[in-house]
């Protein structure tokens, strides 16, 4: 197992290098000038002033030189400082990441809390009412987040005045909770239909009526019945989470912007708008690393849950 892990990690290295090169190339292709971006908002910058800054800040280095500088710093564990803010990129990420985790975590909880029971009920027998509900959820999932956000804001905050419209409030802790509801709901809308449909199929194939009847016949009931099918049923949901999380994260860029949520999505948007190279580079690179780690984790968990996936793994390891 440890040899397998080491090999997987080694194989990931070229991928990582590729991600870093791609991220850097994409940013270099954007037509812009970092010095220009400091003189934001059409504040006149004279020719003399631009020239003076350019010389002072060596911004005329070639892209290859800058890439090499960045890669070497990365190897030393130095992610650089934001060009606009002056603070280390790691500080900015440390501020934003918890907000994104809270928002997406809440969305996942909301999605599963409604999607799983609905999927279960749908998998048991045909009920036209339930079918209609899941159809409606599927319909809701195609409403673009920006439109859903505006509707939710107008209804719950402006019209009814039940929930805060945006932001996180001034305090921390539980005071943030009411502010979390609308953005999390907005994200969950896009996931419910998908999860309910997926769960119906998954429950049907992992726990067919016949298998449950057979288990009952062997005297299993209640908790022990659930435990009997737990591993079987968990597998598809793990995979589903793998598809859900990236989708949520990309949706949360827009949702964070509309709801003034201070997370990673907004950090990325501000970075791209301001051509904050060190910040955007790090964010793109880290998201690549996160996807890679997710795949690795799934590859390691799958054999742990599914004996069929374990067999070839043992085979290759014994072959060494």
């Amino acid at each position: 197992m440890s040899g397998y892990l080491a090999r997987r990690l080694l194989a990931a290295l070229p991928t990582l290098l590729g991600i870093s090169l791609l991220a850097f190339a994409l940013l270099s292709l954007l037509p812009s000038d970092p010095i220009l971006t400091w003189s934001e908002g059409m504040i006149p910058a004279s020719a003399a002033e631009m020239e003076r800054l350019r010389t002072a800040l060596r911004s005329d280095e070639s892209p290859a030189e800058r890439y090499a500088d960045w890669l070497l710093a990365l190897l030393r564990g130095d992610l650089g400082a934001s060009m606009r803010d002056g603070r280390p990129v790691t500080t900015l990420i440390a501020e934003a990441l918890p907000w994104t985790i809270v928002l997406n975590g809440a969305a996942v909880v909301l999605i599963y809390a409604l999607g799983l029971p609905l999927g279960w009920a749908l998998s048991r027998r045909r009920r036209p009412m339930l079918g209609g509900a899941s159809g409606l959820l599927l319909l809701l999932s195609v409403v673009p987040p920006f439109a859903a956000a505006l509707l939710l804001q107008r209804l719950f905050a402006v019209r009814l005045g039940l929930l805060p419209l945006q932001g996180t409030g001034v305090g921390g802790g539980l005071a943030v909770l009411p502010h979390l509801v609308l953005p999390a709901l907005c994200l969950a809308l896009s996931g419910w239909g998908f999860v309910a449909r997926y769960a119906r199929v998954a429950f049907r194939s992992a726990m067919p009526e016949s298998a449950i009847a057979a288990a009952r016949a062997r005297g299993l009931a209640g908790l022990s019945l659930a435990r009997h099918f737990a591993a079987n049923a968990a597998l598809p949901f793990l995979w589903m989470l793998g598809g859900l999380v990236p989708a949520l994260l990309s949706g949360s860029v827009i949702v964070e912007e509309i709801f003034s949520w201070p997370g990673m999505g907004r950090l990325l948007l501000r970075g791209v708008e301001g051509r904050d190279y060190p910040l955007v580079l790090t964010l793109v690179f880290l998201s690549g690393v996160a996807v890679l780690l997710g795949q690795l984790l799934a590859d390691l968990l799958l054999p742990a849950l599914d004996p069929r996936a374990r067999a070839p793994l043992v085979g290759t390891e014994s072959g060494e």
Partner: protein
Amino acid sequence: MTGADLSSVMVERLVADFLVDQGPDLQLVPSLAASWERSADGKVITFHLRPGVRFHDSAPFTSDDVVFTWQKIVDPASRAVGRVDAFLPIASVEAVDPLTVRVTYKEAFAPALRGWQIPILPAHLYRGADFATAAANRAPVGTGPFRFVSWDAGRSIVLEANRDYWGGAPGLAQFVFQIVPAADTAFQALLAGEVDYARLPAARQASLMDDAAFTGRFRVLRSVPLFFYYIAWRGDGSNPFFADPRTRRALAMAIDREGYVASVLRGLGEMTDSPFAPLLPAPRARGPAHDPAAAAALLDEAGWRLDPKSGLRKRAGRTFRFTLLVFTGGEDHVQFSQVVQENLRGLGIEMRIERLDWQTLWTRLKSGDFEAAFSGFVPGPDPDSVYGLLHSSQIAGGQNYAAWRDPAVDAALDTARHTLDDTARMAIYRSIESRVLEAQPYAFLFAPVVLGAVNGRFEGAIPSPAGFLGHRPGAAALRPAVGAPQDR
């Protein structure tokens, strides 16, 4: 000082005082400098600082802080882009005594005082620290009417009243900036009562002004910022169209900006016929009026004749077909460009519209890689600020995107800079203005009216071209409305 977004500029204004400030009508007013005088040859300005002023940490404000602030602004490592220009002609800044600063210019520099509209930094907190990462950047200390309390990254900035303010305690106990990136969200938050001030979305301005329920709840602040839209015609010969002033004049006459402002903006805009529009004494100069027939005649005269087959104008086998660059994020920008497209099609000119994000547009403008571009200009309160748009030295790297070159205008702009007598100086700008209106290197268009709304719980906001916070007294004049409940 490193940030350039709206909120950091506003926070800076509330926490720090400027050495010299501007009133609501943009006239120069004393602030940390209680008075000043200029030597007869105009090269030396002596500032007499206000005595007894203290920073929020109770350190005294002295001439040392002024000298230090100047040093930091001219230091390229500070990246104080957009503020350096007025400081490049300075030879030296000296602290004569704790309350006197003497600034010597290399030569007489007429707009010099405007350059000193800058917040003064506390030297004792920055000296010895790395300027880009100093603690005082995240917890600013100034002499201003509000003191800094907290900054929650990406969420809010909280300020409280400076009860010991030299200009008298402000009317509000607390001032909270909420960071709301989406403009429509900010407006919805105003309606929901979560914020007390927001700009009105451009598309809804006119209808909201007619809405009695809205105007009853909010005080609407109307202002015309120092700003105008223009189309730059790249006239350096890199395309066959815009080097000829007759063609540029014809296009200016073809564009129906009056119609656009009246119908689409429902009158919420002012015509800008000249880049100097509000900066010179009345009366305002007038550019060519909207006249499609005269425009057609002028195009014929310039050799662009209608080709009956294609319906487009041609000259020497070349069809009049060009591309206009437009910022895709601006509703005004895109809508107005479509109006221009329609106007020009009526004259037999095909204009394509290329929509770009701000950074890309800016880069294309700076590199001269375009035929025509729709953009905006923010002049300062002094007519010298139009230098960047018109002087030929500003073609490479500056803002003279039309690449317009007129030696007479270059010389006059330089002379005006060094002319201290105000009447003589304004006369020079008048002569420049008439040459510009004759040559039409840019089509000068209009300035949109900006409407903001303050919750009726507050009063005392003074609208200004600089915004209701961008002047003295600004935020210090805000107070709870008489008889209204107050909790913020």
